[in-house]
C-alpha cells in the first residue's frame, strides 16, 4: 500500500466509507505504522473542526443571512465562537450537575430505539424508580460508577445507590471502577454481587435465571440458601425454574483436531457414554440429518459419531460432524442404559469454511438439555409435566456476544455441571437443538456441526 493510498483510505475511514474488508486492511496497516496513527490524529482534528465550522457557518447563514459583522472572521470572533460552542456543552454540564439532587442515585446516559420519548439522557433516577421498556436499550450509570445496560423487554427497579432489582429481561453490568465493587443485581432467585467485573444477568418469563461473567468474578447468593457461589470469567450460572442450580462453562478452542480449551477437557473416550464401553447409545428423537445432498462429502455423518470419542478432524468436515437438515427441528436422544448419576455433560462443535472466513456459522451451540430418569419414555415434547427435567439451556452466540459470523469462535465447547453434586439421576438425555441464526443458500436456517457429546457419571 502506498502512502498516498493509505492516506486516502484513512480519510475514508473517518468518513465511515470503507467496506468491511477495506476497513480491516486499513486497521491492520495502522497497527503496524505509528506514523500513520499520527497522520490520522491530525486528520481527525481537521475532520472534527470542519464539522464544527461548517455546521456553524450553516447556522450563521440561516439565522443572519445579511449580517456583515459575522462575515468577518477575525481571530477574536472565531475564538469567541469556539468558546461559545464549548460553553454550550459546559452549560449543559452545569445544569446536569445542579439537577443532581440528593435523592437521585443514578442517571440515564443513553437511550436508543422506541423509548426515547419516555426517557431522556440525563434523567435522574431515585430509589424506587421502576423502568419498564419493551424494546431498545437504556444505559444507566449509578453513583458508584457501575454502568448497567437494559435491553428490552426489561423490568428493572433502582433499589439503592449500589443495588437494583431485575424482574425480567436482560441487564449488562460493567463495574470497572473500584467504587463499583459490590454493586448488586437482585432477582427473585438470588443476588449477583460484583467483585470488579463485567457480567450479564437475565431473567426469562418462565423464571429461568442466568448470569454470564465476561470478565472478573461475581458472587451469587441464592435465595433461601446461605451458600455463596463464585462465578468467574467464562462461566455461566443458570438456575432453572425449580431448585436446580447448574453452571455452564463455554470456551473457544484452539481450532486444531486436538480440540484444546482453557479448562474444558478435549473430547474423550473415557466418558460414561463413549461407544467403546457399549453401554450408551444415541439416536434421533426428532428431525432428520442432512444426508440428502447430491454431494456425499457434504452429508452429515451418522448420529453415532457423537459418542465415538473424537470430534471432527478438520474445520469443515461434514462427514465427521452430525447436523440436521436445514430448516428442521431436531433432537438427539442419549440412552445411558439405566438411570445413572450424571455429573457433567460436555458438547463440542467446529466449523469454519476454508475459502470464506465469514462462513463459520455452524459452530454455534444453541440447545436445551433435558433429563429423564425412568425407563419408559413418554411420547411428545419434553416437559416438566411429562416428567422431564430441564437441565440447562446453552446459547454460545449469546455468551460470545456474536454480532456477525467473524465474532463467532469456529471451535467451541460447552460444559454443563451441577453447582453441587450431580445434575441428576437420568437414564435419558435429550438435546433439543435449535438451528443456527444463519440462512443457507435456499434461505432456510442451517444447523450446527456437532462433533462429540461426552457424559461423565458421578460416584
Amino acid at each position, binding site marked *: 500500500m502506498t502512502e498516498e493510498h493509505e*492516506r*486516502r483510505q484513512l*480519510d*475514508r*475511514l*473517518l*468518513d*465511515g*466509507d470503507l467496506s468491511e474488508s477495506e476497513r480491516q486492511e486499513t*486497521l491492520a496497516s*495502522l*497497527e503496524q505504522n*505509528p506514523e500513520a496513527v*499520527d497522520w*490520522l*490524529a*491530525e*486528520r*481527525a*482534528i*481537521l*475532520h*472534527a*473542526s*470542519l*464539522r*464544527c*465550522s*461548517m*455546521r456553524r*457557518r*450553516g447556522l450563521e447563514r440561516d439565522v443572519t443571512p445579511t449580517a456583515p459583522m459575522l462575515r468577518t472572521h477575525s481571530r477574536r470572533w*472565531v*475564538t469567541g465562537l*469556539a468558546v461559545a460552542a*464549548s*460553553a454550550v*456543552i*459546559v452549560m*449543559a*454540564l*452545569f445544569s*446536569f*450537575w445542579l439537577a*443532581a439532587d440528593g435523592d437521585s442515585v443514578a442517571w440515564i*446516559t*443513553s437511550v*436508543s430505539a422506541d423509548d426515547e420519548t419516555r426517557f431522556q*439522557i440525563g434523567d435522574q433516577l431515585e430509589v424506587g424508580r421502576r423502568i419498564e421498556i419493551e424494546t431498545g*436499550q437504556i*444505559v444507566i450509570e449509578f453513583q458508584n460508577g457501575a*454502568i448497567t*445496560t437494559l435491553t428490552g423487554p426489561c423490568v428493572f427497579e433502582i433499589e439503592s445507590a449500589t443495588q437494583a432489582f431485575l424482574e425480567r429481561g436482560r441487564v*449488562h453490568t*460493567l463495574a*470497572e471502577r473500584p467504587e463499583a465493587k459490590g454493586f448488586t443485581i437482585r432477582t427473585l432467585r438470588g443476588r449477583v454481587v460484583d467483585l470488579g467485573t463485567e457480567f450479564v444477568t437475565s431473567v426469562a418469563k418462565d423464571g429461568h435465571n442466568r448470569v454470564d461473567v465476561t470478565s472478573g468474578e461475581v458472587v451469587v447468593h441464592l435465595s433461601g440458601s446461605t451458600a455463596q457461589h463464585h462465578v468467574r470469567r467464562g462461566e455461566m450460572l443458570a438456575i432453572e425454574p425449580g431448585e436446580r442450580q447448574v453452571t455452564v462453562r463455554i470456551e473457544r478452542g484452539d481450532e486444531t483436531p486436538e480440540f484444546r480449551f482453557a479448562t474444558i477437557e478435549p473430547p474423550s473416550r473415557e466418558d460414561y457414554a463413549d461407544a467403546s464401553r457399549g453401554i450408551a447409545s444415541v439416536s434421533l428423537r426428532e428431525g432428520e440429518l442432512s444426508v440428502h445432498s447430491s454431494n456425499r462429502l457434504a452429508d452429515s455423518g451418522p448420529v453415532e459419531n457423537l459418542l465415538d470419542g473424537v470430534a471432527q478432524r478438520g474445520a469443515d468436515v461434514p462427514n465427521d460432524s452430525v447436523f440436521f437438515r436445514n430448516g428442521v427441528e431436531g433432537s438427539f436422544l442419549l440412552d445411558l442404559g439405566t438411570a445413572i448419576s450424571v455429573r457433567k455433560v460436555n458438547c463440542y462443535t467446529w466449523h469454519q469454511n476454508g475459502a470464506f472466513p465469514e462462513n463459520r456459522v455452524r459452530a454455534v451451540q444453541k440447545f436445551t438439555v433435558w433429563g429423564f430418569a425412568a425407563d419408559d419414555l413418554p411420547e411428545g415434547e419434553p416437559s416438566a409435566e411429562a416428567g422431564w427435567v430441564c437441565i440447562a439451556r446453552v446459547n454460545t452466540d449469546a455468551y460470545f*456476544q456474536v*454480532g*456477525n459470523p467473524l*465474532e463467532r469462535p469456529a471451535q467451541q465447547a460447552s460444559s454443563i455441571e451441577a453447582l453441587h453434586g450431580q445434575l441428576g439421576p437420568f437414564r435419558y438425555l435429550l438435546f433439543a437443538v435449535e438451528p443456527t441464526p444463519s440462512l443457507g443458500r435456499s434461505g432456510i436456517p442451517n444447523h450446527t456441526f456437532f462433533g462429540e457429546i461426552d457424559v461423565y457419571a458421578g460416584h
Partner: protein
Amino acid sequence: MPEESELEVRERLTRLWMGAEPAVRAFVFASVQSFQDAEDVVQKVALAVARRFEEYDSSRSFQAWAIWLAKSRVIDHYRVHGREKLVFSEQLLDRLAESLVTRQSELSARAVALERCIEKLPAKSRKLLEARYEDDHSMDTIAGNLNSTAASVRVMLHRIRNLLAECIEGELRKETI
C-alpha cells in the same frame, strides 16, 4: 490552601474543558464514524467530565484524563449498539489518544487558521464541504447531486482536505515568524 468555592470549581472546569474539548472531539470523531453518534458521545464525555471532576488529579494532564473518559464512552457506544464492532482496538485508541495529547498546545491556533483557509477555498470546494460536513451527506448522495461518481467525490474531498492541511501549516508558520 483555602478550599475552592463551587463557583471557582465551575470556572476551573469550564476553562479546562474548553482547552481539552477540541482534542476530545477529534478523538471521538476518529473512533465513531457517524457525525450524529460522535456528537452524542462527545456530549456524554462532557457529562462524565462534569460528574467526575472531583476525581481529576490536577497534577496530571486534564486533556489526557478527559480523553481517557472519552475512550470509555466510545467503548460503551459500541457495546450499546451491539452489532457494530469497535472500529479501533483498545491499543490503537490509546495510541491515537497519545498522539492527540501531544498536539494540545496548537489546537486553538489550528482552529483559527482553518477558518481563514476555508475562506480561501473556491466556492465549489466549499459547497462540497457543506454537503459532507453540514448536511452529513454520504459520498453516493453527494455524487448523485453533482452528477458525478462516489469515487470522484472521495478524491475531491481528499484533495480539499490536503489543501486545507497545507494552508493551515502555512498560516501557523506565518504566526511563528
